[in-house]
């Protein structure tokens, strides 16, 4: 089980007490009605979904119930750091200097990459769709 540090409880707590709440630092427009369809689509649907470091909102739902932000590695699942909601987005370069995540440190195996094709393509190759 992962231990996640809640910045409000100021301690590491079991992951079962938490819930993911999507990507962090996505600002809602102050005049949402004036947004173009393209800009609204970007705000509402498009997420960065990176392989590696991601900034996410989490909620300590079965604890203090607060939302906070976390820097997490999507490959290793390692939580690099957490910080209170409303605090500025941490500087990625600075975080990497102190805590290099596994995804960046590890060499990517090209063989492994070949297997990661969309499900539809894999099915077509096997011919069992």
């Amino acid at each position, binding site marked *: 089980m992962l231990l996640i540090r809640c910045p409000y*409880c*100021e*301690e590491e707590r079991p992951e*079962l007490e938490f819930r993911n709440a999507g990507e962090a630092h996505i600002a809602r427009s102050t005049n949402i009605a004036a947004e173009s369809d393209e800009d609204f689509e970007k705000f509402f649907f498009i997420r960065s979904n990176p392989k590696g470091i991601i900034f996410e909102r989490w909620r300590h739902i*079965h*604890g*203090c*119930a*607060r939302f906070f932000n976390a820097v997490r590695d999507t490959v290793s699942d390692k939580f690099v750091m957490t910080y209170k909601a409303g605090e500025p987005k941490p500087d990625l370069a600075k975080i990497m200097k102190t805590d290099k995540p596994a995804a960046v440190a590890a060499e990517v195996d090209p063989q492994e990459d070949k297997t990661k094709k969309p499900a539809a393509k894999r099915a077509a190759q096997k011919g069992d769709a």
Partner: protein
Amino acid sequence: MAKAATTITAARAPAQAGRDFSAKGVKLAVLAPAERISLRAPEASIAALSKALGVTLPQKAKTSATKDGRTALRLGPDEWMVIDEKGNDPLADCAGVKQLHSAVGISHRNVAISVTGPAAAACINSGCPQDLSLAAFPVGACSRTILGKSEILLLRTAEDAFRVECWRSFSDYVFTFLAQAATDAAA
């Protein structure tokens, strides 16, 4: 002006009333009904609310304060649960406080189960992932957390005694879970 409202009192039908269970090293008992409020308040209102309630609202994470049968459990940065076991209504005490706050009566929402004995922590830990060692969770420590599939509120009342609060509709599940855990802890 309308006539003064008549007080309507409903008969209580407490869930799991009187239910208990004993295993080697652990005793479970459903506790008597209590008065409870959910309290939300900013820092500026804490002093006035503490005075009205007669118990100082704790501000440190995972702590509680008890005085004269009334316990204030700090659940979050601006959230407490106040439990009164002597039949005095904390909701009425908050009513006169002018400082900004929200107090909601939730007496009937919860069922409390006491888990006592040398294997009490082991029993709760079979479904609760928190560190319940005395160093991490000392006497007086409290926290909202989970037990199996249910959210609970956990308060350590003594070294080998806990109060487990859960929602009324989950109380059968929580008690049954604890009884099974108590059997396993004894084995």
